[in-house]
Each structure stands twice: as C-alpha cells, then as structure tokens.
C-alpha cells in the first residue's frame, strides 16, 4: 500500500509527481495547470472572499468526508453572503504515512463537489508533516465569489422578520459524535453535508428580499440565532415545536444529554425574511431535496434585544444560550 512520505512535501520530484498524479488529474482546469506561482483571475466588482480550515475526525463519516466538507464549507460561506462561488484554493497538510488511497478518495470527492458547484480550484499547496504531528490530514480552502444578491447581512434583521431553517437540524454533529465515540446504534443517521448554493441561488433569483442568511455550522442553531440577535440588536422568539429535528438526532441527544440546537450542521442554513415572503421562501426551498424539511421556526422581535427565547408547547419560555465549553472539538 502506497503511503505519503516526507519527500512528498519536499518540493522535488516526489511532490511534483503527487501534484500531477492526484491533484491535477482530479482538479484539472486551464488556470490550475498553468502551474504559475499564483493564479491570475479576471473578476469584476462585488467580490466575496473567505477561508476555512478543516480538521474533522474521523476523516470519513456517514454522508461525507473531510474533502467534501472542505469544499462545501467554503462554498456555503460564500453562498451565505449571496455570492456565486467562482474560484477556490486548497492547501493540504498531510501526516507522514497517510495512505495514498485515502488521499485519492478525499481529492476525488473534492473534485466532484467543485464540479457540481460550478467553481474551479485554481491554486493549491501540499505539505507533509512528520508522523504524530497532526491527525491524518488537515485541509484549508479559500474561495472567491461574485455577489449576486446584495443586502444580505447578519446586521440587517428587523423586528417582524420571519426566521426560517432550511432543514432538520443537528445531523452533522450527531453523526460525528456517534462515529467518534464508537457508539454503535442501529440508525440511519447521516451528516447533512451539502452545497447550499443551488438553494440560495434560487432564492436570489426569486427576487425575495433576504435580510440575513447563515449556515448553522459549529455551535449549531443556538450559536447562529444568538449571533443574529446580537448583531441586529433584536430579540428572536423560537417555537420549540416548529424546529425540525429527526428522531435519530433527538435520540442521540436523549442518550448523551446534548441539545440538538447546539449540534453542528454542514448543509442547513437559517434565513431571515419579511413575514409576507416567508411562505414563498419555503416553497422555493422545498424544491430541493436537501431542504425538504424547511420550516418557519420563529420571528424577530423588538424586545429582549440580544437574546433568543425558546417557547415550549405548554407555554413556558426560556433563553436559548449559545453553546459553551468544549462541546465537540474538531467537528469540521
């Protein structure tokens, strides 16, 4: 079985072979294969730019792997600013002894996900670190997108806005937790890891005014809602019953004492829109398989500034606090 050696990161022949045999073969496009020191891009005004590093363990999980995650993570960050993803960079730090076969599988799913998004990987880097100095493989991606929907910002939510979630919450966090702790339950639990751009693009084209978008990654729904309440100086009231949560995720939470609101998602996002547009928004979302459980879960209010309030079905309310402490490190 072929394994990554320190020489693969040495910058010599082995590095060159690795780049040609794996990265160019999978990511091939005319900008990347020019192999210049930097990619030369022709982009107009209104650009969004983002970067993210991925350290998830386990690197392969039900519903995806670190490679797929590294592409959708960055594409989704662009999408949340109303930006169509155009160009990506990727940098790998690989542990000495890592299997070629696994690297190829990771790179292949990155290529597929990039192709699907319509973006291109135009530059990259590879380093190899001695065995024991990192856990298998870390990937960084950065991305540039063209803003096609303006005015989307976490500062723009107004009292009266309706809060929508694009799907059932907590699947990525619950999947990683179960796989990492080796909890072998009979379950169909699968990460929600998905490219959100198609749904965001459809919302943008519909002409609906979108006040805010955010993908509920680390910290889950609880973190996003608290960030919004804080940034827009509003209160947010959520009806507990309307938040879509699968039986599997609820079950994991029951067994281990977690809250589904704190669990990370990698293909689920929140939307704030005018109340009048809310149902139209849901109709558009439901055209996409990964948004089939999209739901209105609450609304923004002028009171309780900076706070998120969770209403139970029996009439009690409590604050939904942002998650604290080391809930689950290295989830993405």
């Amino acid at each position: 079985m072929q394994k990554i050696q320190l020489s693969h990161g040495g910058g010599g022949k082995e590095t060159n072979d690795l780049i040609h045999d794996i990265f160019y073969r999978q990511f091939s496009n005319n900008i990347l294969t020019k192999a210049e020191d930097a990619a030369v891009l022709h982009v107009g005004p209104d650009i969004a730019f983002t970067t993210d590093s991925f350290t998830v363990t386990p690197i392969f999980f039900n519903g995806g792997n670190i490679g797929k995650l590294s592409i959708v993570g960055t594409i989704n960050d662009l999408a949340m600013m109303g930006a169509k993803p155009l160009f990506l960079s990727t940098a790998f730090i690989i542990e000495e002894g890592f299997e070629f076969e696994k690297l190829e599988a990771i790179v292949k799913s990155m290529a597929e996900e990039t192709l699907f998004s319509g973006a291109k990987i135009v530059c990259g880097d590879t380093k190899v670190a001695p065995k024991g100095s990192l856990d298998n493989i870390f990937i960084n991606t950065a991305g540039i997108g063209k803003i096609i929907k303006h005015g989307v910002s976490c500062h723009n939510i107004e009292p009266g806005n309706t809060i929508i979630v694009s799907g059932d919450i907590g699947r990525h966090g619950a999947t990683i937790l179960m796989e990492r702790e080796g909890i072998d339950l009979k379950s169909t639990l699968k990460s929600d890891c998905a490219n959100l751009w198609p749904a965001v693009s459809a919302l943008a084209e519909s002409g609906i005014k979108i006040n805010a978008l955010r993908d509920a990654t680390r910290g889950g729904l609880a973190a996003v809602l608290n960030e919004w309440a804080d940034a827009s100086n509003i209160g947010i009231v959520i009806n507990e019953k309307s938040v879509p949560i699968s039986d599997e995720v609820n079950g994991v939470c029951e067994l281990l004492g977690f809250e589904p609101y704190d669990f990370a998602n990698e293909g689920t996002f929140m939307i704030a829109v005018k109340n009048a547009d809310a149902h139209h928004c849901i109709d558009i979302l439901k055209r996409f398989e990964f948004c089939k459980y999209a739901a209105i879960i609450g609304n923004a209010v002028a009171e309780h500034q900076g706070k998120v309030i969770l209403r139970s079905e029996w009439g009690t309310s409590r604050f939904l606090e942002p998650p604290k402490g080391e809930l689950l490190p290295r989830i993405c």
Partner: protein
Amino acid sequence: MNLKLKDLFYEFRNPDTIKALSAAIADEAKQLEKPLYIMEVCGGHTHIIMKYGLPKLLPDNIRFVHGPGCPVCIMPKERIDQAIALAKMDNTILLTLGDMIRVPGSKSSLANERANGYDIRALYSPLDAIKIAEENPDKKVIFFAIGFETTTPMTAVVIEQTVKKNVKNLYFHINHVIVVPPMRAVMEGKSKINAFIAPGHVSIITGSKIFISLAWKYKTPIVISGFEPIDIMRSVLMIVDQKNKRQSDVEIQYSRAVAAEGNHRAQELINRYMQLRENFRWRGIGNIPGSALQIMDKYSYLDAEKLFADILPNKPAEDDKLCICGEILRGIKEPTDCKVFGNVCVPNTPMGSCMVSSEGACNAYYRYRGV
C-alpha cells in the same frame, strides 16, 4: 412490537398532559394550609425542572428548592486537592468521571493539571479502569470514584474485577456518598423544606425503604420521581394530595423502575467491598457522620487513601467567601441570590461547584434561565 427510542420519553412530555397536571395541582393547592417547599434532592431533577420551565407551571404557594444531590457539587475542595496530589505522583494515571475534571480545588483543578501534562483521564464507563490498568502495567492507575448509590455498584464491580483478576496496579480513592444523611442534615438545618421529591435512580438501587424513617420523623411527604416533566408534575400532585390528607408517607411515582426493596444484587456488591466511613465533610454542609463509604478493611491494599496517605493534603479548604454554594445545597438560598452568579461565576470559569456540573443548581439556572 418495534419499540423506538422516542417511545420511551415522547408521551412523558405530552403538552396536554402537562397542562392538565398543572391545572390539577393549582386546584388542589388551594386547600394547602401552608406554602409547600419541595426539595428535589437529585441534580438530575433540578436539570429537568429548569429545562422544561416547570416552576412557572406551579401556583404561588408551591416552590421547588434544589438539594444536595449532585455528586460533583458536594465534593469538598480538599478531596480534589487529594486527586491532584495523586495525579502528580510519578508514573501515575488518574481516572475519574466527566465533570469532576473541571471542579476547582483549593488552588487548581484536574483540568488545569491535565493541561500541565499530567495523565488525567475521564471515563465513560468505570470498567474501562481495568483495561487501562492492564494496558499500563508499569504505571500506578488510580480511580477517583464519585457518586451516590446510583454509581456505587459500578465501582464495586471494578473492585471485584480487580480482586478476581489480580490486577496489581489499580487503586481506588473512594468518594461515594449516601443520599439520606444529607436530607436529614437539611431537615435539621434552617431550611423551610416540608416535602421531598426523592431521587429516582438512587432508589432503583436502594429501594424506597431507605426514606421511610425520614418521612415519619420530619412529617414530610416523600415521592420518588422519574425524570420526565410529567413524572415531576405528577410527583408534585402526589405531594399536594398527601399534604391535604395530612399524610407523610413515601410514595413511588417512578414505579416503572423503582421497587420498595431495590436491587438486591447491587446492594450485596456494595456491602461486600465497601463500608461506612465514620466522617465525610460535604461541601457547603460540613461534616456528616456516616454519610459516605470507603473500601472494606479487608481490601485496604487497594485503598489509595491509605497507601498514599503521606502525600495527601488533609487541610479542609473553604469555598470563596462570595460563593453561596453551601447555602444553596442546604436549601436556604437560590442561585439568583448569589452576587457572583452569572457574572464572575459562569460555566466556563466556575467559582463554586454548583456552576460546574450540568446537575448543579447554578449551572441549570444559568443554562435555562426563564424569561
């Protein structure tokens, strides 16, 4: 029948039933002669009560008061100092359970010392202690065991396995406590408690029989409750009924799990490997005679407290003057009475033990503050 996980809790959270119970309690409570101060002893109950906002579903003359039933919260600082001293010995691995790692001792916490490079591990299952000892034959492995009667049988099993398998390098620092003595201490103190919701999981092991003398002596109704909102609301209703009928009995609401006699096999295991400790100092409450366990003399060669006695600090360490965990654990004050609650003392940087564990009253108040 294909039983799903959610079938185990779904109906116990039915909003209509919760509302109906709330109405029934309000109705019955009109006949109460005096306000009811119900202490839920167990930290697990405190958590559920706060998470589901149950205090808001009770009439003004019924209050929940949170009790001393969180094993992490009642651990005095000097015993954490002892755990740290043990962890710092050469060639040692110290094992304990979850939240214990973060509780501040007099100078440091196990989490701090872990960051300093000492080998301190949190176990999911106490039985992993055997595996870790076998995998590290050249190291001393010390299990810092904590918990009420619910977790004691598991420690007894680990001791049994250590003896049977003749594991040479596993030692025990036992901090297991018993639930009835602190309840008695609460009743002897200044609190207004006149009823108890008794712990469900402890009672599975001990049976309901352990609470009888307490109910009679202090004329307090005691209801053993399950851990869903409907269980707790139903238990409150049973307490109100008893009060209205001037009864003070032990009743089991959690009858799907608890019996009068408890789990004989578990009781037998505990009695085989552990004996009553003369004294144990509870955080915030002080010394309660006969309120904790230690390893049976016969197995004292496994007892880390005896073997390493010369390095163990024994000086009682008091809590910070601003922290009122003690009065909270005795049912005299509430977390919101504390000056440092939610500002200086928060879950990430707890001053007192009640803020550390998710079963602690302060932590539950902080996480689930009502609106």
